[in-house]
């Protein structure tokens, strides 16, 4: 049986919005596809061999948590870059996405270095962008649903978006594009249990992961999660 290893990075810092649910969803989807799944919960100052992981997952945190993670990540930039080039899948939800841009400008106009793996800059804002999100992605026919609650905007984006929102805020006010989907990188400001609430999206990502390892895709069955998705669409959008 093939093994897929997931690094849940900064599990104790970037976990503000039920992000552990995403790791559970990945586990269940992969297991249903006859893959042995190993999950390692990892955090700052630990010895981490990034080369042994197939998936790196990171979630949301408050300002202080993001700063702690940023400082730790910068110390490991070389190793993470190697994993990036090797084809490790990066699944990023919430404001951990900010960590992959080039710069971060604080409200006090201080500019901080970020990982710089993707072409965008982040700017802190003095208000929060909060609300439900729904939009279309090129990856799948079903719409993606979720929630965002953030205090940064993304500027100078030169990467393909994760999905295009129907309404509310994308990279920045009056922009509908949100998140980044580039090769093995799936990143979105949509927070919390994205992979639970969007079983079709998760299915698509798992297919890509299995394909990259030349493993067959057997399918996925979670009737409850699919029912929850459909009920939500019916209650909040179809009846409007």
């Amino acid at each position, binding site marked *: 049986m093939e093994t897929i290893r997931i690094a849940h990075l900064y*599990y*104790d*810092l970037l*976990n*503000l*919005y*039920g*992000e*552990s*649910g995403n790791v*559970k*969803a990945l586990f*269940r989807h992969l297991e249903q596809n006859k893959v042995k799944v190993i999950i390692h*919960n990892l*955090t*700052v*100052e630990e010895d981490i061999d990034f080369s042994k992981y197939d998936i790196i997952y990171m979630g949301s*945190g*408050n*300002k*202080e*948590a993001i*700063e*702690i993670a940023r400082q730790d990540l910068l110390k490991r930039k070389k190793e993470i870059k190697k994993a990036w080039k090797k084809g490790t899948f990066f699944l990023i939800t919430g404001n951990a996405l900010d960590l992959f841009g080039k710069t971060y400008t604080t409200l006090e106009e201080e500019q901080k270095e970020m990982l710089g793996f993707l072409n965008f800059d982040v700017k802190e804002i003095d208000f*929060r962008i*909060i*609300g*439900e999100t729904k939009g279309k992605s090129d990856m799948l026919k079903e719409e993606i649903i979720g*929630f965002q*609650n953030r*205090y940064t905007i993304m500027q100078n984006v030169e990467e393909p978006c994760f999905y295009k929102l129907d309404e509310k805020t994308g990279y920045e006010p009056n922009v509908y594009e949100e998140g980044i989907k580039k090769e093995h990188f799936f990143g979105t400001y949509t*927070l*919390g*249990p994205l992979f*639970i*609430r969007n079983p079709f999206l998760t299915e698509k990502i798992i297919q890509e992961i299995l394909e990259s390892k030349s493993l067959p895709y057997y399918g996925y069955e*979670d009737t*409850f*999660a699919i*029912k*929850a998705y459909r*009920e*939500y669409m019916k*209650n*909040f959008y179809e009846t409007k």
Partner: protein
Amino acid sequence: MLLAVQIIISKTMTKICHIFKKNASVLPGYIAYLLNNRVLDKVKYPRYVIVVTGSSGKGSTTALIAHILKTSGYKVVYNESGSNIINAITTLVLNHCNLFGKMTCDVLLLEADEKHLHLFGKNKMTHLVLTNITRDQTARNGSPDLVYDSIIHCVDDQTTIILNADDPMLQKTKLQFPGKIITYGLAKTKDSLQSPQNKSIDNAYCPNCHKKLIYHYYHYGHLGSYYCRNCDFKRGKVDYEAQKVDLENQTMTIQKEEIHLSKNILYVAYATTAAYALCDTIHIDREKIKEALNQKSLSAKRGKEYTLAGKKVTMLESKNENPLSYYQSLKYITKEPGIKTVILGFDNVSRRYQENDLSWLWDVDFELLNDEKIDKILCIGRFKYDVLTRLSYANVPKEKCIIVENLNDIPAITKKTKGNIYTMVCFDMTAILHKIMEEEHGNN
């Protein structure tokens, strides 16, 4: 002069609301506030103005403090109904003023919403009790650190802060607040945990140097005894420590006095210790505090009991979006004896805003419901399938879960399920369940 007019308006509006059987807690204060939003600055306050705030436990703590003070002969004005936003507080204050703007009581005691405290304004509070800061209503509050900041910016040096030192977020007040601080907490109990009940705890890192905190033990969530291996930040010795906490027998000791707990759940131990600490700080006789707390009639705020299908119903008013509040209710259910039926669900995540952020469901330890003593779990409300999905990930067997499409079917369904009924529903479903139970009693 304007203040007298506002007082008259508030009292008159309250009477009118009562005549028309409308909620009188918010509107009178709202009108007064519209006339002058500094109205609360004009009032002459009593000797003690005590405010209780935090993410959870403030209602229970306030009720206990009020009980002790009243039993000790103090005339106490407090927001007993739990209306804790600024308009409700304005109504309460003005309705207890004479026409000269002087409050006619010994103590003003307020359970205050942590995000509305700044509207109350500085230079009024003599004492501030802080219960805990956890992730709670994140769509409104943002992260816990933002809640903490909004509270601490409302406090001036003249206020004595009574804080829960088991919470590192609150303990950091010692690093920055120059005024008087009194601490309380719980000593290790036989139920204390060596590792947190789940990995998504708040404030796992030192607020001083940002290194990971080491815990001697956890009570629940991030509450426990901790220290930083890098700097001198720690829980350390507290001023009021509850010891020998025995939930089975509902007892504990504070300052070597045996104290009764009104419920066999840990948040009540916290509320009781906080109330003791506050009352001792303002020099209430310890014998009187003990006597008040040990009255058997004393019951905690949550957990009213009803019947449905001939079975006892305990309604646990769990707050959506507050995983630790939910955890306490789950623990309570699992510790209760016998077979049980549980009802879970909600139509709306919040009554304060329309957004429905479901992320908190994944921070609640629903794994506790994977318990052989639970017969069935009824999932109700618009998000019943999201709740069901969560239960499935908590490994609750699917044959134990019942999706309730029509709420009127609840009496018939619960006739067939086993054991007493425990509801963990939010405000919207609480009202509906009340109606169903009242109708059932009417039909019988």
